[in-house]
């Protein structure tokens, strides 16, 4: 399993450039919004957490659709499917590797973007924390979509469509927890704990669904 994790990481670094394209896209998104909102710093800092979250969400989608497809194309998937180790576990490890390669860099880059958006330190911290906790959920849901996309030769967009509706709760709780950290009356903990719960939930459901789809789509 560790072997699989390391291999996927190595592949992501060596061939995908995954991390960087994600971060760059993320930055592009965040850089463009101020053009829309205008130079109103107050407003910017208000919508900051939302924008950072949306950017992270969209950046994760890039490249997610190839999670299993690359393995299918060169025949590796066949062998992964044959093993005695539960397929769910294999999928889970692949998700972890993908998250490490493309989700984690976003989390690390987010404080920088928070500065761009003129957010307070507390808000930046909150966004980073919620992203750290919430972004794996996006990968896990995405894995289910990617498993479906294996049967489609170019599933890219379709995957995102199938995935995005499910991601909505993650976004809602992530953003509201970030706001709650800054605004006084609202407590931070409830939405944050909800976010944790969602991530744990999808950490189970996502790989399960992906494994089911993979088993059912091999040919």
């Amino acid at each position, binding site marked *: *399993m560790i072997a699989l994790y390391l291999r996927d990481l190595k592949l992501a670094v060596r061939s995908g450039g995954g991390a960087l394209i994600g971060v760059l896209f993320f930055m592009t998104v965040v850089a463009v919004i101020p053009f829309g909102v205008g130079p109103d710093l107050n407003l910017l800092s208000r919508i900051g957490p939302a924008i950072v979250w949306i950017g992270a969400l969209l950046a994760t989608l890039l490249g997610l659709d190839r999670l299993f497809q690359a393995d299918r194309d060169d025949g590796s998937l066949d062998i992964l499917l044959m093993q005695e180790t539960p397929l769910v576990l294999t999928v889970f490890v692949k998700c972890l590797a993908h998250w490490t390669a493309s989700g984690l860099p976003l989390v690390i880059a987010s404080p920088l973007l928070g500065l761009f958006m003129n957010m307070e330190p507390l808000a930046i911290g909150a966004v980073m924390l919620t992203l750290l906790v919430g972004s794996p959920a996006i990968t896990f849901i995405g894995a289910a979509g990617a498993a479906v996309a294996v049967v489609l030769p170019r599933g890219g967009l379709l995957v995102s469509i199938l995935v995005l509706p499910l991601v909505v709760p993650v976004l809602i709780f992530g953003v509201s927890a970030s706001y709650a950290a800054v605004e006084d009356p609202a407590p931070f903990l409830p939405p944050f704990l909800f976010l944790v719960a969602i991530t744990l939930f999808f950490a189970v459901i996502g790989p399960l669904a992906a494994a089911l789809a993979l088993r059912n789509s091999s040919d």
Partner: protein
Amino acid sequence: MRLLADDLSARRGEELIFRGISFGLSSGDAMVLTGPNGSGKSTLLRVLAGLLRAETGTAQVIEAEGAEPRPVREASHYLGHRNAMKLELTVTENLAFWRDYIGNFAGGEGIDIEHAADLVGLTGITHLPYGYLSAGQQRRFAMAKLLVAHRPVWILDEPTAALDADADAIFARLIETHRAQGGLVIAATHQPLGLRDARSLVMTGFEYDELEARL
């Protein structure tokens, strides 16, 4: 160890490809599948490897007399048309990954990567990225993958495509060694593999007017 296939049939798309195939193999046996293009050889191998669900029937291995039957896939190496190696990683990285990921099946040990490279006749280029190799060299290293992790059953789909005469001989030797150690081999092929007293199963393809879709 015995491998038992019982009344296997399979569909591709909506069509039945073969029906009622049963056979039993035991340690040291080899079976060669032959038949014209499109007759269902690859399909049968994928059913055995658990990659396609059989329409009816089962395929199981029994490790020892009285042991619990297990699905064939858990005891098998499958070498398909594609080599299951990443072009971006070096040969060593690829082989090390499969060795660690697949692991050994009870009752055997995989061999060292360098040693396996020796055995397929390609010493000294394991540090190259896999994508830098010629078609035949790639295929040879895909064979080396069978050696680094032990699995008693080898399921091979046209293993010698792209191999030169030299490699054909090497390959036949590998199979014989594997059989001598109690392994089982099932291979689909269009060329003679040069195996001693192998059983053979000739696929003829289904009679088309017997086709019946599921609905």
